[in-house]
């Protein structure tokens, strides 16, 4: 019985029906050369699987990249992506960094000023007249049960809420409530990683602003 390597491989990959499988097995029982070809094909497949192994666990650094574990920070490790981003930012004129024009910056600054002013006024009214907690202004804008925000984030206009949340999670941060009407997100970042996380966020083209909440030091 003449048998092609493709037919043998299909049998090895369990992609033939029962009748074809029986024919192939019967033929191999009588033909050593055919059986040897099947063994060779099987060995090549096994070698390929061995060359690209299935690792049951992802490395911790990769889990961190996927937002599934805290970012791995070591003194002897250089974050090349961050270095590249910083270098690229340094090479660009300030007005065009991250596609963020000078007029955009003024717009964001104005929005931020409005948010801060309204938030501060609201906090004076809603919280305590003697409160010294700078985060109160942001609590007053959102859900009063969520008070842990220690940074503000603003994305490019074409970034929808789902993508924004995904980026926040990927950065290792946590969003606190919904974005404001101006599109500013309140987020919480582990204090020890806040500066690095915000720097990384600033390096993303989709991020227009990533700033710590002033006075609310980690």
């Amino acid at each position, binding site marked *: 019985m003449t048998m092609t*390597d*493709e037919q043998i*491989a*299909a049998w090895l*990959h*369990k*992609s033939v029906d029962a009748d074809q499988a029986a024919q192939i097995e019967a033929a191999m029982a009588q033909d050593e050369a055919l059986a040897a070809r099947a063994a060779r*094909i099987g060995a*090549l*497949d096994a*070698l*390929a*699987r*061995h*060359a*690209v*192994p*299935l*690792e*049951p*666990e*992802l490395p911790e650094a*990769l889990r961190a*990249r*996927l937002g*599934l574990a805290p970012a791995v920070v070591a003194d002897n490790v250089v974050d090349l992506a961050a270095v590249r981003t910083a270098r690229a930012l340094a090479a660009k004129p300030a007005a065009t960094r991250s596609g963020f024009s000078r007029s955009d910056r003024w717009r964001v600054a104005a929005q931020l000023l409005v948010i801060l002013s309204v938030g501060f006024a609201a906090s004076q009214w809603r919280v305590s007249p003697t409160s010294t907690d700078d985060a109160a202004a942001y609590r007053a804008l959102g859900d009063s049960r969520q008070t842990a925000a220690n940074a503000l984030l603003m994305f490019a206009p074409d970034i929808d809420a*789902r*993508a924004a949340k*995904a980026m926040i*999670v*990927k950065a290792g941060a946590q969003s606190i409530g919904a974005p404001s009407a101006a599109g500013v997100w309140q987020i919480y970042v582990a204090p020890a990683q806040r500066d690095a996380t915000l720097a990384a966020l600033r390096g993303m083209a989709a991020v227009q602003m990533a700033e710590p909440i002033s006075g609310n030091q980690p």
Partner: protein
Amino acid sequence: MSTASAVGTNEQVHARLVAFLPRLRRFCHGLTGNADLGDDLLQASFERALSRLDQWQDGTNLENWVFRLARNLNIDRLRALRVRGVTVDIDQAYDLAGEDELARLETRSELDAVNAALGAMPVELREVMAVVVLDGQSYRTAAELLEIPIGTVMSRLSRARQLIEARLNRTADGALA
């Protein structure tokens, strides 16, 4: 669906995606022919899946949906790099099979030889290797996932295997020389 049950479902789907990551990682390595590029593709695929989860239809195979996302992202990457693999005439793939590329690559073991062959072969061949040989999917599933006839799955697998074998023989000849 109530909000509470929707949240519960999303958490379940997310957990399923996370559990699937080792398989996806191997698949991405196979698609790119390179471990580092594979991890980059894995990250992009995972993020794409999370951001487009609303497009996945409950009742369909979640894992194969993510495989498709990964495959499309890899094609986009190759197009961006203007790699010929995507547009190569598959009937000539073996002849184009990167003989120069293979000759240029130095390998010291069979596993290195297999990885070198995977990295050098056209992406269409890597795709069927990733789906059938690495992930163990049936020819029918591979045909659906890659949107090609079953016969093409078979012929591409055969050509991929020939490339790997050629590379192994070259390594063996080099070791004997």
